[in-house]
């Protein structure tokens, strides 16, 4: 049982960081939703706030690590160009070149044209949003309990970050299933 370098990076990028992102998102969203003065005592707010800060910072850091590792480590393997002379319509010779393997057949081309084209871009929106959320949570801390309009805005941004990362992650899983970089 062994992993190649590419397999390790794809697992780290998609599975490890993706799982951390999901955990941090669900915990953070629940934390933001329940951070209401009528639901919590002062002690309760003080107890929850550090967890919310750590969760939102982890989410932002994980979002950045995911897009950076995906774009600058995994993606070049995906778009590697086959050597001259290979038949770009013959999938049997394109196994090491996932992008070209997908494009070689009408049955798989949409995984690249729609799936990868969307994934490689939309994913980058997630860290921008997650960083804004983390900044706001650090900035206000326990005071968020008294800023309902900002708390609601944070939940919206948090959810949009999740949707961006979720779309990218979902297509990443599908594309890896169709044409793995490993």
């Amino acid at each position, binding site marked *: 049982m062994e992993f190649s370098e590419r397999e390790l990076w794809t697992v780290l990028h998609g599975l490890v960081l993706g799982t951390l992102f999901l955990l941090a998102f669900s915990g953070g969203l629940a934390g933001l939703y329940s951070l209401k003065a009528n639901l919590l005592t002062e002690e309760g707010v003080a107890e929850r706030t550090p967890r919310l800060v750590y969760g939102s910072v982890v989410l932002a850091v994980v979002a950045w690590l995911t*897009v950076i590792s995906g*774009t*600058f480590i995994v*993606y*070049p393997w995906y*778009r*590697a160009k086959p050597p001259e002379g290979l038949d770009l319509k013959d999938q049997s010779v394109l196994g090491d070149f996932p992008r070209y393997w997908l494009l070689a057949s009408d049955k798989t081309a949409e995984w690249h*044209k*729609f799936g990868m*084209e*969307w994934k*490689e*871009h*939309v994913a*980058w*929106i997630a860290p*921008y*949003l997650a*960083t*804004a959320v983390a*900044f*706001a949570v650090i*900035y*206000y801390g326990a*005071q968020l309990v*008294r*800023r309902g*309009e*900002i708390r609601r*805005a944070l939940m*919206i*941004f948090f959810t*949009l970050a999740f949707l*961006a990362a979720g779309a990218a992650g979902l297509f990443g899983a599908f594309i890896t299933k169709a044409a793995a970089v490993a």
Partner: protein
Amino acid sequence: MQDMQTKPNGPVAAAFVAAGVGALVLGIFLVLNEISPDINNFLKFDASYGLGKGVGPLSGKVALATIAYVVSWVVLHMYARGKEVNFSRWFAAALILVLAGFALTFPPIFEFIVGLFPKAA
């Protein structure tokens, strides 16, 4: 109105709008990359500036979007620092920018826009 026991909301509003600017700039460069071969070449920051290897124009798109995000955050933060702004208005602007960015990354939408330009490949 600001709860006097809390900090002013300007810095948070600035962070939200900056995130929207980053998303929109990413979407704009995605479209420009498809429209113009010159811009496509310009965006290959991996070849021009060594930003990654084999990443292609995506390297320039994400670099410029991230720079726009950071720079707009700094500028907006300096403007809004210490101020209590109309948060609903700032957040609406941020949301519009983010959703525009989302829309421009969605292949059917950016392909439609690209198709409006005669020089598109």
